[in-house]
């Protein structure tokens, strides 16, 4: 199995029920060779259950798991040859760093000499060579995390499974390790499956993200595509922040349509291949706060609405504004600080504008 390249994994109609509770609901997903896939969702979305099913710790109620085309669903965890980094790392407290990393080799009955070579290589890979003889409790959180990575990679696993690998670390260290993990993925070229509830982590590390909610796969795709073209209200809201505009679709054409939101008409341009909603259908738009601009006097845009600032906060790189509009209710706007040619103040009248392709038509899956 150790050809040094990634392997492809396929989930086919995977379900898991606990009594009447459905933890995972008919999830089908393909993970390509060498891909870094992140399962993203709030707690209880089923993402961890899916990972545990892939690892072999949870027996699916229905569906199957295929590795390079062969069904591995009935295999016990120790026969799957997957590396796994557990939440909280699960390092063996009674073994040194080197013994921890050597463990998977030892249970595979490798000779001591082979073991030593591989352990050294794995520890060097995560830059912990000099800590081989320490006990886990003598290491910092970040170091422990790297030992867990080395241990999960040392036996050339077919896949690397990561269960919230960074959740136990503080914010700054987390950002650092995100980059490191991504670089490690490039270096070893293996298929990584990562589980997290942290959208920033998912966006920064993954080749592809699968978004889950209530056990269902909602949408999957590259981080940019998901962020730019969310398919549902949940995706738009969970991945970043968004304003939502509700109204009735009017005059649909192949190029776009108008959303009649109360007294206000919003122009929407569609992307290639996107179908407009039928005339008169109640529809929902997602509009990212950073896609709305503040219009200077005389300037104009495809969509314009007047209003005044209700609240504002300074974020260093920019401003976050809450604006009460005359006709569209309250909108959130994020503005790069260098673009703000004014000092924000509560009650200040403003004009907002955005282009017709800024808003995205989404399905309303709110409960």
């Amino acid at each position: 199995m150790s050809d040094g390249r990634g392997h492809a994994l396929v989930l086919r109609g995977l379900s898991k029920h606990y009594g009447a509770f459905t933890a995972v609901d008919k999830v089908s997903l393909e993970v390509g060779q060498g891909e870094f896939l992140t399962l993203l969702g709030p707690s209880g979305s089923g993402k961890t259950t899916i990972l545990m099913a892939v690892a072999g710790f949870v027996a699916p109620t229905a569906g199957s798991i295929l590795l390079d085309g062969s069904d591995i669903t009935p295999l016990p965890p120790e026969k799957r040859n997957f590396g796994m980094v557990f939440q909280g790392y699960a390092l063996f407290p009674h073994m040194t760093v080197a013994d921890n990393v050597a463990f998977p080799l030892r249970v595979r009955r490798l000779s001591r000499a082979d073991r030593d070579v591989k352990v050294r290589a794995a520890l060097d890979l995560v830059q912990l060579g000099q800590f081989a003889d320490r006990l886990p409790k003598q290491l910092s959180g970040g170091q422990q995390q790297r030992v867990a990575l080395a241990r999960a990679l040392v036996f050339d696993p077919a896949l690397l499974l990561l269960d919230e690998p960074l959740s136990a670390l503080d914010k700054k260290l987390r950002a650092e390790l995100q980059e490191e993990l991504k670089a490690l993925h490039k270096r070893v070229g293996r298929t990584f499956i990562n589980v997290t509830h942290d959208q920033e982590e998912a966006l920064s590390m993954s080749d592809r993200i699968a978004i889950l909610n209530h056990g269902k796969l909602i949408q999957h795709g590259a981080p940019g595509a998901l962020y730019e073209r969310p398919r549902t209200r949940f995706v738009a809201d969970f991945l970043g922040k968004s304003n939502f505009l509700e109204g009735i679709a009017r005059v649909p054409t192949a190029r776009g349509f108008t959303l009649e939101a109360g007294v206000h008409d919003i122009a929407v341009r569609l992307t290639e291949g996107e179908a407009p909603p039928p005339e008169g259908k109640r529809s929902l738009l997602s509009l990212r706060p950073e896609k709305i601009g503040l219009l200077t006097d005389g300037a104009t845009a495809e969509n314009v609405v007047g209003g005044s600032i209700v609240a504002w906060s300074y974020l260093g790189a920019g401003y976050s504004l809450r604006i009460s509009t005359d006709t569209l209710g309250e909108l959130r706007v994020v503005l790069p600080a260098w673009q703000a040619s004014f000092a924000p103040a509560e009650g200040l009248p403003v004009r907002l504008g955005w282009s017709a392709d800024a808003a995205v038509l989404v399905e309303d899956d709110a409960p």
Partner: protein
Amino acid sequence: MSDSGRPGLGWWLLILPALLLLLAFYVAPIVQVLAVSVTEPEMGLGNYERIFTSGSVQRVILTTLRICLITTVFALLLGYGIAYAITLASPRMKGWWILAVLVPLWISVLVRAFAWVTLLRRQGLINNTLMESGLISEPLPLVWNEFGIIVGMVHYMVPFAVLPMLSSMREIDPRLLAAARGLGASRGDTFRRVFLPLSMPGVIAAGVLVFIFSLGFYITPAILGGGKTLMVAEWISLQILDLIRWGLGTMMATMLVLAILVTLAVFSRIVDLRRIFGSGA
């Protein structure tokens, strides 16, 4: 006790009744009687010389140590099995397993010894059943010997072995076991390389506890030994109640207390007694 002016004093007064009771009616009687070992029949260490010169004293010490070690080994083995099952059982089964351990723990030691006599004696249930089924023609000597003592003592000690092992096994993160499986370890490997080493502190604590409890055990050996196999506690009682040899009896009592305290001191680094008893109650 309300307004003593000094805030700490009231709290100290709370301790006083228990402290005085223990000093006056626990520590004092013991110290007084242990002192007898160097004053009767005459001042000096004469009684202690008997350890080196008297065959019967040596025999009772060796018998006691042998029985205690065998008891400890079996209690640990059986207790480990049950503690392991409890730790890994589903929450619903856990309650039943724990009941199987706690109920014997709190049932009178006399009742338990009586139950074993009923089962093991010559006309007991086991011998009768075996004779009726034709497997044996003569009753087996199951009681009033060392075998009977060990059967009864192990039965008494298993719960005491289970509790410290259980509390140490409970601290083992189940994710470590999952991690071991995920890294390719079989069930046997996971047990041998991860679970067993992590549970060792509990095993040692249990061993110490069972051993020191066994050393001074009186009722079960007295009933199931039938007076033929003497352990120190019964021997002490014999010296004092029947032979009125206070010096010899208290010498052995002193040795018993010393043996227990030394065992505890040696293992005090590993064994936190307070925690053991805390989890037992």
